[in-house]
């Protein structure tokens, strides 16, 4: 993936988009729009650091590549790398491969918000990956007002709880945060003349293990266009409830580009 990016970057000018948010960049809740058709968007350094009660740290790095494969549709591949400390263990490694498709159903109009759907599969790959494939479906609604923009996300995951759930000392679930369901809302405020967006969210998620409590989270973040080529984001949040309340910070750097051979004009 990295070599693909490097090969393309020499021949492609690009402009990333601070206005449209992606899951995890900087917040969990995202908007309903897909990456532009024919565009690649590479998340270069999406870092997440989490500090749980007792000073337990978990690091995550999830390089992702999204491609606008069809009108209003992108496919995305992520390879989450994790480093976690739990139960006296310190482990690092690939925490699965995440493959997803986002389809934006419509553009926002006066009467209808923008609607999007996502199908996501987390594949059991890597030492910190899940024990089985988890398939999720997500619905997204985006509504824009002159004073703010709202995004509403709802996600449901199919599949049994892992046998090595977090309570049993496993690190896998902590690394990828698979949840039975997730519901959240984010609010954005854009400063277009500064190419800056600030955003805040709250979401709740039910871990796969029904015995665990629902986790409530709150976070805030920014996205900023550095140049026509690069976009940075950062976030700060808190898991307010659940079995393991924690602080987390995220940072990301993304770049969009195109590969000429994939365009309809040669």
């Amino acid at each position: 993936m990295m070599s693909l990016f490097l090969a393309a970057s020499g021949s492609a000018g690009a402009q990333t988009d601070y206005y449209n948010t992606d899951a995890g960049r900087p917040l969990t809740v995202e908007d309903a729009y897909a990456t532009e058709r024919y565009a690649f968007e590479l998340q270069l350094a999406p870092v997440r650091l989490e500090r749980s009660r007792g000073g337990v740290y978990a690091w995550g790095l999830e390089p992702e590549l999204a491609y606008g494969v069809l009108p209003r549709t992108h496919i995305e591949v992520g390879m989450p790398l994790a480093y976690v400390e739990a139960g006296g263990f310190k482990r690092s490694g690939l925490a699965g491969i995440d493959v997803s498709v986002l389809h934006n159903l419509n553009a926002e109009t006066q009467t209808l918000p923008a609607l999007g759907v996502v199908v996501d599969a987390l594949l059991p790959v890597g030492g910190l990956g899940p024990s089985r494939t988890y398939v999720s479906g997500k619905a997204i609604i985006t509504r824009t007002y002159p004073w703010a923009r709202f995004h509403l996300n709802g996600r449901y995951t199919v599949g049994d709880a892992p046998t090595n759930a977090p309570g049993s000392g496993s690190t896998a679930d902590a690394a990828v945060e698979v949840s039975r369901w997730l519901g959240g809302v984010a609010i954005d405020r854009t400063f277009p003349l500064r190419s800056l967006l600030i955003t805040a969210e709250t979401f709740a998620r039910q871990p796969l293990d029904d015995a665990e409590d629902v986790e409530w989270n709150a976070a805030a973040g920014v996205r900023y266009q550095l140049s026509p080529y690069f976009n940075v984001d950062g976030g700060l949040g808190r898991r307010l409830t659940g079995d393991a309340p924690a602080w987390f910070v995220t940072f990301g750097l993304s770049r969009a580009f195109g590969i000429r051979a994939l365009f309809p004009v040669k």
Partner: protein
Amino acid sequence: MTSYRILPAIAALALTSGVLTATPAQGQWSTTSEQYYLPASFNWQFRTNYPAADRLFNAFDYGHAILYERLWTQPGAPVSLLEEKEYNFITRELLVHPPRLPLEEAAIEIEYAKLAPEAKQMFDWAHLLHRQIYDVWADERVSLNQKDARVAELIAYYKTRRDLAFSSRPKSMELMEGQPYSLAFRKNYPKFNGLIWAYHWLQVGLYEPLVTGKDRDARQTGVLAAVARFRQMIENAPTDMPRIMPMTAAVAPAFAERYPEASIIFDNLHSMHDVVSDILANPSVPRNRKRSEILRAAGRYRDDTSYVWTIAEWKEMSQMMGVANMGGPSVGVLEGFPTPTVARGAVHSEMTDHSSMSGTPGMAGMQHSPGMSGTDTSARADTTMAHAGHAMPSSTPDSSMRSMAAMEIHMRMLEDPVIRARIRADTALRRMMTEMMEGMPAGHRASMEQMLESGTSGGAMSGMDHSTKDSTVPTATAPARPRVAPAKKAPVKKPATAMPGMDHSTMPMPPANKPAAKPARKPPAKSPAQTKDSMPGMDHSKMKMPPAKP
């Protein structure tokens, strides 16, 4: 724990129902979408090599966006919202400190983007083509032949989006000016409309120095000069702004000759910008029909059959309407302003009223009656007498002409040593003369003060001819003093004559234009070529001055 599980579901349902029922459930299902621009090594070269112009274009995005947003969301707002508040913000702040990056227009025209996302995407798609063609011509690594090939690729790629691409066949003015809603915007918002046309002038005009510049330096100078001319336009709004929509074939003829398809696309783009403004600004279009009217117009601009002109007709119309009315050419702009030949907001149908105008090269085949129906003779006189670098005491063409005539009368009076002595001796007369001179341009005032005090001519108006028979006398050949640094190797063009070839004998002229009642007593102290001219652009050859000393 149960409440924790129920709460998110309740919140989700509430928000979902809220967003879905925020407006009447009259579905507007739009599937328009964005598409990435063609990857190439030349991308962003314009930003790199011409940063000042590139930044201006970022600011232009704001102007278009806020215009539509205000017209749509505040239909009952006073005219001053756009003509004063927004205009002042744009011209005094945004264009002075333009954004460093292209703007996300959806974040500015929030409600308009929801009203007609399809039209917004059409504009965005055409703006991408605009920018990429700048990039091709800004990239010095790309040879001339390669530039043509790259532009052809860009146009081909542009046209792959049939749902977004403007037709590359010319559309008649009827589509822009002949609809029930037409002209509402330009009539109600002349300054902002002039600003938009000035934007469009630069957006197409900037191609010309890029295409005609013989080398990198010439292109740099030419681009800077065009940008400077744009800034001149907004200095004195709306007087110096385009009076009709700039057309590419007129403003950037070399570019249009080289890339007619792109030029037509841009003309259609700019034309539709005006149409959307008219639809939004015209209260006769009910709010619940604005979207459908915009989409109908958008469809007509995309198809190849509605309101189509031939390319020959398009070129002919571009010339006939007169580049002087469109802000002037975008190269060789370091002289005075061109001379418009029509009134602000003139429409095509009026200009082609052959029954009332007589033919001129600038308006081929048109009939010009003595009164010049459909044209603004006062405006013509104003700009004929306009002196680069000098603000006239009054802002309207008529008053400007009268002031010029009065100024000439006073100048001629001061030629007479007896009159000068009389004025110096009479304190009341001296005071009145001083007050009158305060309203004059600085150069004239200094000259008259010098004459009054010392009796010398000062040379400022030596040899000046204030006759407005500008189109038939050597006036047109007098080089104008540039208001900015002269362009390197910029072609020197004659200032546009008001209406070359036109019979001015029947036009009403102010007294100053008649032959001088009193013949000049002495020849000019210096020839115009030798004298530093404070009123460039005027023919000073016939202005008689008093001797250096009484």
